[in-house]
Structures are given as structure tokens and as C-alpha cells.
């Protein structure tokens, strides 16, 4: 940590703080109030923020640094989940073997796909990865049913071998006895803050993943990856073989995705084929672009943003809307609810799409550019204030 630059240390500490304080930060509204609908501080969603954060960080190492746009990262996520669930079925419910295997299998899988796909660049590379991912999805969905349990999804059954387990063993995913699903609730006045073990384990991995990506960004290897993004042809002309570098980046980001998949299965021991579908891959690309591709923290923000919409906005139904606008006269209430119901509930995709358009048009650098602009504006204002107070009078 010593060798990190000052600003990087600050970013890392910021991430650690956010990760630890998430149960407080995400539950700003008191229980039972009308705004409680917007609270996101419950275990399942916090876990999602964390492992999709890991996924987006990994994707950013490939896309943000080398500029190679992979449209098949969901395949690695799925492979990771399946590996983890198989470990639960064969060995036992401790999450460690599952996480290790998910990273290894995703690594091997991404080596294979990367070796072939990276023979091309640009749009051809994207199409190749997309093809591989769709192939994996189709296979998991039907051909490989004995291995993946098809559409129903791979689950742990009571009659699975689970060689490391006896009758007294814990039957839910755990880390040496710490159950992922255990949650402690802290009641302060009308607020209820939930601290979930599974979330903190995910958060630990998120921090570790972030630190690793920070080191990669600042390393000579990271510099080489950026050089590839800037001008690969020139690198080739100077006699540098770029393929090993891109392949390494691809495998690293694949392993990140595998880890995310393993964590996903550890929090909820079921692996479904649809998490490998191309829409899931597209979502990862959206997360990264929305947050800010090539920035350190952006992808994590993007992942949180999308998951928040998916889980919070999709649950606002017409009854909830009527509850909010009940104070208005009937006709007006119905009119407002009629307009708004296109944007919430099953219409959450529409809201997300509009926001995505707005961000891409007005803030091409994603949420991070927005944060930067606000920061700059603040700095300028302060600077202006200073200059005005110390205004020099023109010389006579």
C-alpha cells in the first residue's frame, strides 16, 4: 500500500469506507415511511452491488484499458456459478472450494475463448465473444442439461454426495461456520440497519478486487494495455507482440467474472442458464459505460446504478403510486399515476434506457465525468471566491 500515489490511497480508502458503511448509507429513510420504498440496504441487493461490482471491475481491466469490447463476459459469470454450485453438491457447503474452482474454471475457459477471439480486434472480436457466449448459453440451456439442469437451474439437493458433510453440518453456504444468510439488525429509532455476513464477505472480495485492479492500472503492464488501446498498429511496427498482453488482460478479467459468479452462487446456491444470455453480457457493458469506462471506480458505480433500478424501480406498482399521490384530486391523481406507471414496475427498463441515453449524450465519460464536473465546478467556485477577495486593483 505504501507505494500507492496519494490520490489512489484516497480512492481506495473511499471504497473501503463505502463498502463498510453501506448498510447505513443505503438505508437513509426510516422504516415505514413513504420513502422506505427507495431504501436499498437489504442483504440481497447489497450482495448484488458487491459481486456485480467485482464483475464490472474485471470487465474494465479489459475494456477500459485495452479497448477490446467483449460481448461475452456473462459466459464466464455463468461458468463460475456452475463450478461453485457443483462444489456445493460434491464437497459441502463451505464456499472456499467453490470460489477457488470458479476462478480456475473461468480462467481456463477465458484462455480458450480469448486465444481464438483475440486473433481479431474491433467489431470482429466483439462478435466472436458474443458468439461464444451465446453458444455457452445454448449448451447450458439444453445440450449440457445433465451438467447444468437446463432451464430449471442447478440446485443443491439433500441426496447429493457432499463428501465433507455429515448430519450436523450446516446445510446453507457458509465460511467455516459463518452462514452467508445470517443478518443482524441494528434498530436505531425508526431505522433498521441490516448487517449481513454474506454481504461483508462479498465486500471483502470487492475491496481486494479493487485493490488488484488499482495495482494493474498503475503497473507497467497496465501502461502497455493502455498503449494497445491508443495505437496497436504502432506497437506492432515497433516490434512488440501485443497478443500476450491482450490475452493476459482477457484471462484476468475472465477470472474476475468467474469470481463474481462464484460469489453469486455462494450467496444463493442456484445457477441458472439465463445469467449467461447475451442480455446479461450487454448489461455488463452498460454498467461499465454508464459508470465510466477506464476509470477505477466508475464500473462499480455503474453496477450499483443498474442493479438499483432493476430491484427498486421494478417493485413500484400502481398501488404504491396511488398511495403517493392520494392527496391530489382524483382525476389528477389518476392522470399522474397513468403517466408514471409506464416508467416504474415492469417499465423500469424504459427509465433506465432514458437515463442511459441522457448519460451517454451529456456525460460521455459516464457517472465519473459527472462527479468530476461537479468537483471542478466546486473548485472553480472556491478559487473564484478567493480571487475576488484578494482582488488586485489595476495599476495606475
Amino acid at each position, binding site marked *: 500500500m505504501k507505494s500507492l500515489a496519494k490520490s489512489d490511497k484516497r480512492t481506495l*480508502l473511499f471504497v473501503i469506507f463505502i463498502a463498510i458503511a453501506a448498510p447505513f448509507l443505503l438505508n437513509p429513510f426510516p422504516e415505514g415511511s413513504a420513502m422506505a420504498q427507495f*431504501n436499498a440496504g437489504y442483504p440481497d441487493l447489497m450482495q448484488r452491488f458487491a459481486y456485480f461490482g467485482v464483475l464490472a471491475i474485471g470487465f474494465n481491466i479489459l475494456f477500459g484499458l485495452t479497448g477490446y469490447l467483449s460481448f461475452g463476459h456473462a459466459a464466464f459469470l455463468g461458468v463460475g456459478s456452475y463450478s461453485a454450485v457443483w462444489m456445493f453438491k460434491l464437497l459441502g457447503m463451505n464456499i472456499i472450494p467453490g470460489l477457488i474452482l470458479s476462478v480456475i474454471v473461468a480462467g481456463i475457459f477465458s484462455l480458450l475463448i480469448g486465444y481464438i477471439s483475440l486473433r481479431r480486434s474491433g467489431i470482429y472480436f466483439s462478435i466472436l465473444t458474443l458468439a461464444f457466449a451465446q453458444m455457452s448459453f445454448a449448451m447450458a440451456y439444453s445440450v449440457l442439461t445433465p451438467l447444468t439442469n437446463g432451464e*430449471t437451474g442447478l440446485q443443491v439437493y439433500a441426496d447429493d454426495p457432499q463428501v465433507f458433510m455429515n448430519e450436523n453440518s450446516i446445510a446453507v453456504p457458509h465460511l467455516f461456520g459463518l452462514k452467508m*444468510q445470517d443478518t443482524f439488525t441494528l434498530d436505531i429509532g425508526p431505522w433498521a440497519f441490516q448487517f449481513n455476513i454474506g454481504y461483508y464477505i462479498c465486500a471483502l472480495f470487492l475491496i481486494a478486487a479493487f485493490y488488484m485492479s488499482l495495482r494493474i492500472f498503475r503497473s507497467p503492464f497496465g501502461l502497455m494495455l493502455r498503449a494497445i488501446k491508443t495505437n496497436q498498429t504502432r506497437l506492432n511496427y515497433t516490434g512488440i507482440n501485443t497478443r500476450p498482453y491482450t490475452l493476459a488482460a482477457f484471462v484476468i478479467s475472465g477470472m474476475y467474472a468467474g469470481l463474481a459468479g462464484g460469489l453469486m452462487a455462494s450467496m444463493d446456491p442456484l445457477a441458472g442458464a*439465463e445469467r449467461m444470455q447475451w442480455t446479461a453480457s450487454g448489461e455488463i457493458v452498460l454498467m461499465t459505460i454508464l459508470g465510466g469506462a477506464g476509470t477505477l471506480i466508475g464500473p462499480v458505480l455503474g453496477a450499483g446504478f443498474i442493479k438499483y433500478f432493476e430491484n427498486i424501480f421494478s417493485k413500484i406498482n400502481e398501488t404504491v403510486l396511488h398511495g403517493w399521490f392520494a392527496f391530489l384530486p382524483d382525476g389528477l391523481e389518476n392522470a399522474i399515476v397513468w403517466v408514471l406507471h409506464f416508467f416504474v414496475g415492469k417499465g423500469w427498463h424504459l427509465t433506465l434506457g432514458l437515463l442511459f441515453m441522457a448519460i451517454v449524450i451529456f456525460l460521455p465519460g459516464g457517472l465519473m465525468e459527472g462527479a468530476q464536473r461537479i468537483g471542478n465546478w466546486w473548485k472553480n467556485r472556491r478559487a473564484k471566491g478567493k480571487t475576488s477577495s484578494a482582488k488586485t486593483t489595476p495599476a495606475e
Partner: protein
Amino acid sequence: MSNFTRRGLLKTTAIAGAGLAMPTLITSPVAAYTNAPTGGSVTLGFNVPQTGPYADEGADELRAYQLAVEHLNGGGDGGMMNTFSSKELKGNGILGKKVEYVTGDTQTKSDAARASAKSMIEKDGAVMITGGSSSGVAIAVQGLCQEAGVIFMAGLTHSNDTTGKDKKANGFRHFFNGYMSGAALAPVLEARYGKDRNAYHLTADYTWGWTQQESIAAATEAKGWNTVNNVLTPLATTDFSSYVAPVLNSGADVLVLNHYGGNMINSLTSAVQFGLRDKVVNNKNFEIVVPLYSRLMARGAGENVKGIFGSTNWHWSLTDEGTKAFVKSFGEKYGFPPSQAAHTTYVQTLLYADACERAGTFNPCGVAEALEGFKFDGLGNGPTEYRAEDHQCFKDVLVVKGKENPTSEFDVLEVVEITPRAQVEYAPDHPMFAGGNLGACNSGA
């Protein structure tokens, strides 16, 4: 941040450590079971597909849930609460607590359904989850409810596995299943189409399709039919022409469509457009069978369903008191008759509420005990029993046919035969249902 020193780091670590340790120091009082309702209300979670191939069924399920909540809270005309053989429900909520509900979208995907159910349990404090318009989703959510310690009242799920190899102590199903469809349909098909038939199956590629195909094939083969081929089609398929074309040259004279919802509408339309129904194969008229029928599908497929046989859990044209009361109050509220999806979810909600009343608690283990072996009547299906061994309801099954001369857009099916319960019943360890284990009920404590 220029003073980033070892001391500073130690301080930060100590504070972070204290923060992490805090939750272990202040554990909240342990409730007797997951989401025990504390205030004057109780929350139920309605998890239905609002998007995807089963969105129509999901929308109708949601209407039925809202109606059931209204009736439980004493609103409306009380619907089937008046005809229900158990008289515990008084229209004052459940156990005196007002019924509230939250909704979610399963997207007909296991992952999304589980996420939505989890948020209902963890965020909204739902004490019971119900819904699902696909067996894959129902099984996934049933597993989740078992782990979390809440009751799962399955909605529209017709796979044998839901109460077979994937059955769970916290899960209950009122709807019938693939085996029952086969047992009810086979004799009718034999009587109409004869013993010597060659069947070609198109099957939705997931747990429901597989088990229904297996059930229909077994039941018809027992009557002397021959299964020529079984082709699996992905759930997301919308154009079935490439699957229908090979049927013509296969030598088959019956096409069995193991499809539901939007899938069935598309595959049937495609089969009719290819002129299959006008063909004569092996000197017999070519026939199409849709083992699991619903009014919503029949309406979607329009003219094409005329004369096509299938089975259904319930139909609004039945004339018993329960059906009449339900159709009346549903019709008055929404302006059209309910589908079988709406019926089963409405009944499941009442059964859950009634079980809570009889158990005197919301504790899942108490509720499960009250439901096991429960015999009731007056809910539209005649005398019904919740079998204790596998949490499956046993009741009569309807064999229906697409009506030749529909009088309205809702009057598209006619009931051909009511197959008695004894004919569709099977042993809990029947090979098609074996391999599962209910396990112990989980209250989450």
C-alpha cells in the same frame, strides 16, 4: 490526506474493525420465525411474470390476488369465502391482521424470480410468497422459500417435479400436474381418435415440458399409441415454423403440443397455417392435441383452437356454487371471467389464510401442519385434498375442447368430461415423482 501515516492507518483500521464487530455485539431479539408480523398488518408477496411469454397469465394472477386480498380484508362480496367449506375466515384479515401485499416481476427467469422473492422476504417482510407462471421459476422460488423459512403457495405450475423430485416441506401446490393431464386425457383421446395412432411431440425445453411430455407419452402408449418423435423447443422461441415443417414427413398423424402461453399460441397457429389439420395421414384425419389448455391461450389462438382437445384445472363455465361466486365477483371487478391461473392463485391465497386461522399462527411449520391432509370443498373443484406426503392437491380434472361456435370472446372452451379424482390419483412414490424428499419444515428460527 497528506498525513497518511502508519498511525493514521492503524486508527482507520481500528475504527473499521469496531464497525465490523458492532453487529455481533448488538444482536436483535430473535423472532420465533422469519418475518413474524408485529404490527396490525401482515404482508404477502405476489411474485408473478409481468414480462416474457407468460405475461398474460401473470397479469390475470395479479388480478386474482388483489381480489383475494380485498375479500380477506372484508371488502367486496366475499367471493368464494362464502362457499368455502371451512368457515374460519371472517373478512377481518388474517388472525385479525389487515392483509397487505407487495408485487414483483419474475420475468419468467429463475434468477430474476429469486431476486424478487428475496427482496420481498428481506426488505418487505413478506411471510408468504406465492405465484409463478412457469414450473422452472416455481421450483427455484420454492427452494428459496424453504431456505428462508417462509411458506410458498405455488401458482400456475404444472410440472410433475414441483411436488415430485423437487418437492419441499414449505411448498404447496393446488394446481394439477402433467401426470393428471395424461391420465385424464388418454381415455378421451382413445375414444375419439382410436387406438392406432402415431404421435409427434413438440415440447417446451424445461422441467414442465419434459415431465408433461413423459406423462402424455406414457398414458397414450398405454392405450396403444406410438410416439414417433419428441422435439424440444427453447422457451424463448417465437417462430415455430421450422419445428412444424418436419412433422408432415414423419408419418405421424397426431401432433401433441407441450407448450403453454405465448409459445402454444405461436406453435398452434404455425401448425394450422401449414394445413396440418386438413391433412389425411395413414387414412386418418390429422389431429392436434394441447394437453394443458387455458382460456387465455385459447383466446390468443382464436379460430385455430376449434375442436382441439386438452385438459385444464378449472373453467369459469362450471356450475357449482364456488365457481359461480368467484366468476361473479371477479367479473364485477374486472369486467370479464377469470382464467384458471386466476382461479388457482385466488384459491391458494384463501387456503393459506384459512390455514393460518386454523393453526392460530403465521409460523410456517404451524401453517404447513394445518394444510397437510386438509380436506375442503366449495372452491370450484369439488371435494379436494391436500395430500400430506407431497403437498399436492387431489381433485377432479377437466377435459376440454375448443368450442366450435363460441358465443363470446371468453366462451372459447367447452368441458367435455370431468375426470374423477380416483382416475388421476397416483402413489406418492410413483416413478415419475420419485427421487424427491420433502425434508423438514423450516420456520427460519
